[in-house]
């Protein structure tokens, strides 16, 4: 039996190691080259047009004539609705805001704040929402879009620990459950989650209630369908930290399984607030929610000016870019 000198054994091992390292390095080098040519993920660009969202009025339940057929006015609004556009084909998104939920004297759920000072039942909401969707279908054939049916959490007098938050979430789940999916688009749920602090009464909403609402709302329907829940409100933690933690804002904006973020950017003070949420935990901002408002004291501050829809998207995008975030703001603006 011949025995190789130990130095030959060492030389062989070194050679094999070098081969392995060399091959591995070559693979990594090739990947690096590919990555260099692909470049870093670039930012989405501002859309070329916004989608217009709606505050529902009681008049949406009125009947009008559409080419000789009686339809709800909601149908006509949906037919005439305007969806935005962007360069990468991401579907535009709009929100139909039914303001806030309440119960009538019998305990039946509905909505209030639609302009007539009266309660409208959830059956009325479902009927109006179906009419709006049908109008969108007929006015925008073969177009891809998202329609969100939402309310706010401005439910004054509900205590933070009240079971009403979860009950209201279930009620909205059932209400939206009666609305047919768009033919060519998609549907989602929306909530204008804000602090809504009332300086007269001292009431403010709370993060716990909002999370309970969303957990109750965002359960699957019988056929397995679960709808995304868009938070199109402001940063409630900044507005009223006593009842909203930063984590709770993040939860209803991204953390909960169905949560997606449509941050409200009405005023110049709001982009840094949402960046603070992002810095707490990252999230993807699907769309910017703007409002066509001209007001001197935005949220009571003369230092706070209102934005155009372009200004709103650019302001949030710039605020994110300033902290090195280039790809977590979608190319969508929806404007009330």
């Amino acid at each position: 039996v011949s025995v190789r000198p130990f130095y030959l054994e060492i030389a062989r091992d070194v050679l094999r190691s070098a081969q392995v390292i060399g091959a591995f390095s070559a693979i990594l080098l090739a990947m690096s080259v590919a990555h260099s040519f692909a470049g870093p993920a670039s930012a989405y660009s501002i859309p070329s047009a916004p989608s217009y969202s709606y505050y529902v009025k009681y008049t949406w339940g009125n009947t009008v004539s559409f080419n000789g057929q009686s339809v709800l006015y909601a149908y006509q609004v949906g037919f005439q609705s305007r969806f935005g556009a962007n360069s990468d084909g991401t579907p535009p998104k709009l929100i139909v805001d039914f303001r806030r939920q309440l119960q009538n004297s019998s305990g039946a759920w509905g909505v209030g704040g639609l302009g007539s000072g009266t309660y409208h039942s959830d059956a009325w909401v479902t009927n109006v929402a179906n009419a709006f969707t049908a109008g969108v279908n007929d006015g925008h054939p073969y177009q891809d879009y998202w329609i969100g049916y939402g309310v706010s959490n401005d439910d004054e007098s509900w205590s933070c620990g009240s079971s009403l938050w979860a009950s209201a979430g279930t009620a909205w789940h059932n209400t939206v459950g009666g609305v047919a999916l768009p033919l060519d688009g998609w549907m989602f749920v929306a909530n204008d989650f804000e602090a809504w602090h009332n300086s007269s009464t001292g009431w403010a909403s709370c993060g716990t209630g909002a999370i309970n609402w969303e957990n109750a709302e965002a359960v699957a329907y019988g056929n397995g369908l679960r709808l995304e829940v868009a938070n199109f409100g402001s940063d409630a933690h900044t507005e009223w930290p006593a009842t909203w933690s930063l984590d709770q804002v993040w939860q209803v904006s991204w953390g909960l399984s169905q949560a997606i973020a449509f941050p409200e950017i009405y005023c110049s003070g709001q982009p840094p607030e949402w960046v603070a949420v992002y810095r707490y935990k990252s999230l993807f901002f699907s769309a910017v929610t703007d409002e066509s408002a001209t007001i001197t004291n935005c949220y009571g501050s003369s230092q706070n000016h209102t934005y155009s829809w372009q200004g709103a998207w650019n302001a949030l995008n710039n605020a994110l870019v300033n902290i090195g975030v280039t790809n977590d703001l979608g190319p969508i603006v929806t404007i009330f």
Partner: protein
Amino acid sequence: MLPSKVSRGRLRSPHPTASLLPAAFGFILIAAVVLFRGIGSGASSTAAPTGSADATAAADPTDKLAAYESAHPHGTWGPMLSGMDLGMTAEPLLPEPDWAKTIVMVPREDRRDGPLQLRDADSVWQVGSVPEDGARLWDDFYVWTALDDSTDPATSELGTFVLNATDPDTLALDVVYPCPQAIGHLTIVAATEDSVNFTSDAGVSGTFNLGTHAWTFDLASPQPTAAP
């Protein structure tokens, strides 16, 4: 085939500094790039925010939405109620519907979670509606008042606003008119389609003409000499 709901792919573009330069930094640097930038995975290029240990904990949003779409096939949940002919256009709603002519004070309950201008205004009235899209829609026309305390002395302002406006003509009606006198908070007490009447907490009453945008003050009411 399920239509795309979101842009699932990350946008890629040629990089001006594309070169073999990364190779020069050696194996360790390359490995670091691979590990932290997620080559070929489509993961976000977002830098970890300062001071946030959980900054990259969230799932890729495109994955999240794609998974949602995949789990919930489109178009299987209930029939639509419509059935109009494609290509049909809406007719103008003329003459103006009676419900569009409403002139009414709007209580806080009906505006507290609505448009920004109206939420915390001192006083809001709906003064009829304005046509939009060639009168295919009739949008509420509002007049509101609020105190601008950024001025010294504080002055009130009166604004006009169209709910759900989309046309340039109706969007252009979102205007603020500063009150030429410092007379405190204004409360609208009456309105017609042409003008609104107001009183102030300084005891001054007057009128704002919605057509000419002219302010007139009742000389019989107290006139302020200083800020209220």
